């Protein structure tokens, strides 16, 4: 187990490092002159020169890259040009809402997909199973922002059950914080739940044909009981695989949902920074999003090992004869 964790951490660090180079490289190669992008087309040569000096853009690219990377560790990513906030502090402040939103959605999506997918696989010949199947198709087709708007309209405005937007820290008021997160989390998890449900369903249908399900039934389990006790855990291996692939979509969804629900998270800062042409801020924000995906990826790796003892033995090197 320790070996698996060490290996996952190492690959996380390596991926983060390579990722940071790609982020830096991409933004510098498409943007032309960064100072020019920030100041716009009517900037005077003097202003450009001053900003380039302030941002350290006159130094060679590798110096710029390593001073940025160093800033990630020392907590100094510079200052936003137009809004004049400290970038590192601002990102830290906005990490909370985004993390709550993203992990909250995963915490809803994974169990929901397991339950729905399993149920629809067991009821595969019946109407109830078919309903879930069709609903999951629709769920995939509905864009998160639209689902969010409809939810705001129905549950926020018409019924008034939940706030229509904004964010309250759970440290301030736990109840209000949870109430505020309900709609955005649901809107974000709708699509992911639907995709995962379909995978769980097909994985369960495969697993139900396995010999050990028949063994469980021979012991005295019903088909449904065998599915619950022996099927779900085996099917969750493929859920983890697909779940990992959905992380990118999850973070993209976070950006959209934060803007729909006016949540002051990473995603909303990203959009305002892009609109304000704050290249330096965008660069650090994308790295943060990348890191969040890598961390979730890491957790999925650990989940694999926890779920499947065979992986534990083959990767952990703990050979048992």
């Amino acid at each position, binding site marked *: 187990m320790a070996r698996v964790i060490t290996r996952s951490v190492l690959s996380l660090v390596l991926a983060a490092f390579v990722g940071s180079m790609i982020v830096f490289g991409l933004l510098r190669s498409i943007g032309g002159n960064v100072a020019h992008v920030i100041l716009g087309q009517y900037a005077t040569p003097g202003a450009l020169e001053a900003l380039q000096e302030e941002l350290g853009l006159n130094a060679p690219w590798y110096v710029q890259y390593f001073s940025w990377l160093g800033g990630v560790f020392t907590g100094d990513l510079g200052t936003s040009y137009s809004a004049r906030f400290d970038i590192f502090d601002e990102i830290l402040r906005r990490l909370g809402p985004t993390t709550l939103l993203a992990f909250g959605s995963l915490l809803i999506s994974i169990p929901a997909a397991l339950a729905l997918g399993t149920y629809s696989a067991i009821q595969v010949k019946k109407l109830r199973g078919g309903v879930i199947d069709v609903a999951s198709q629709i769920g995939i087709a509905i864009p998160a922002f639209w689902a969010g708007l409809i939810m705001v309209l129905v549950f926020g405005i018409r019924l008034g059950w939940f706030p229509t937007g904004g964010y309250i820290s759970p440290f301030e008021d736990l109840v209000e914080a949870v109430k505020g997160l309900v709609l955005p989390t649901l809107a974000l998890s709708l699509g992911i739940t639907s995709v995962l449900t379909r995978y769980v369903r097909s994985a369960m249908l495969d697993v139900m044909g396995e010999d050990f399900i028949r063994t469980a039934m021979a012991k005295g389990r019903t088909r449904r009981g065998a599915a619950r006790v022996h099927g779900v855990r085996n099917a969750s291996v493929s859920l983890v695989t697909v779940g990992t692939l959905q992380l990118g979509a999850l973070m993209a969804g976070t950006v959209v949902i934060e803007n729909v629900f006016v949540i002051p998270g990473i995603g909303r800062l990203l959009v305002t920074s892009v609109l304000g042409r704050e290249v330096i801020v965008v660069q650090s924000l994308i790295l943060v999003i990348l890191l969040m995906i890598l961390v979730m990826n890491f957790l999925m790796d650990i989940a694999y090992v926890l779920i*499947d003892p065979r992986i534990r033995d083959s990767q952990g090197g703990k050979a048992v004869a």
Partner: protein
Amino acid sequence: MLEIRDLDVAIGRHTIVSVERLDIPAGTRLGIVGESGSGKTMTAMSIVGLQPNTAVVSGSVRFNDRELVGLSDRRLAEVRGRDIGVIFQDPAKALNPMMRVGRQVAEAIRLHMDLPRDRLRARVLQLLTQVHLPDARSLMRRYPHQLSGGQQQRVLIAIAIACDPKLLIADEPTTALDVTVQSGILSLLRELSVERKMGLLFVSHDLGVIQTISEVIGVVYGGQLVELGPARRVIRQARHRYTQALVSANPGIADDEHLGEIVGRQLDVIPGSVPALDRFPSGCRFRGRCSAEIASCAQPPEISVAGDGHIFKCWNPIEVVAGSEGDLDAAS
């Protein structure tokens, strides 16, 4: 104890298995032999409702006067494991790869008995010891992939006998194992059957294996029971042409006095192969592969009695010469 009457198993429009009559008296070891695709596994599985989802079972299977065909999955689940245990062909796939061995054995007990933790654990240890698994205590904590094929099959046997069933259905339990491991499993099954007076329905394509373990042998061809009788009679005095062909295609069947006839001789083979489901000829299903076909074979054969629990379905059976060395009727 187990009485099968007019059992039909159909997939779609095709009837795969039809068994008119098959009884397993309490404590009897019955072996079913047939080629692959002959429907022997399907017959065994349909007894306890473990046939594939697509298969439809009709007819009657009575276990101690209780009808099993048509029971709901929930009711059948009560019978499975408690009254009838089952073991399968491929032990490597038959255990849940993600659950410790001990828990999988314990589950078989818990489903039918309410035992406190410590007694449950003691019972699991006892079962693992009874199937001759050494070091049961540490074995309980292992996962299936950490066990050898023979160990896995022994664990599965422990699971199947966990609640002292009256009947054990064994579907090709030794086919996936090495020959040396095979004989160990066979003697274990025989021992358990004798000690616990537990009936055994043993299914295999291997006549040699069937002969080792069975008191009664049933021969299946094309989903139909073509011959049934005491093991010695079926092997030595086969009446059905297919049974005879099967026996003479098998080198392991010869006893010592006939060994000389077999060594250095080419083994007989049965011409052709088992046809696809919808390709069986009308009348006797062995028609076309049989060497002794006569005109009446175009009609479905009826059950003939050869005496003393020995029945067969053949229009032109092998005649038994009265008073010959092999005539067991005269001897008994």
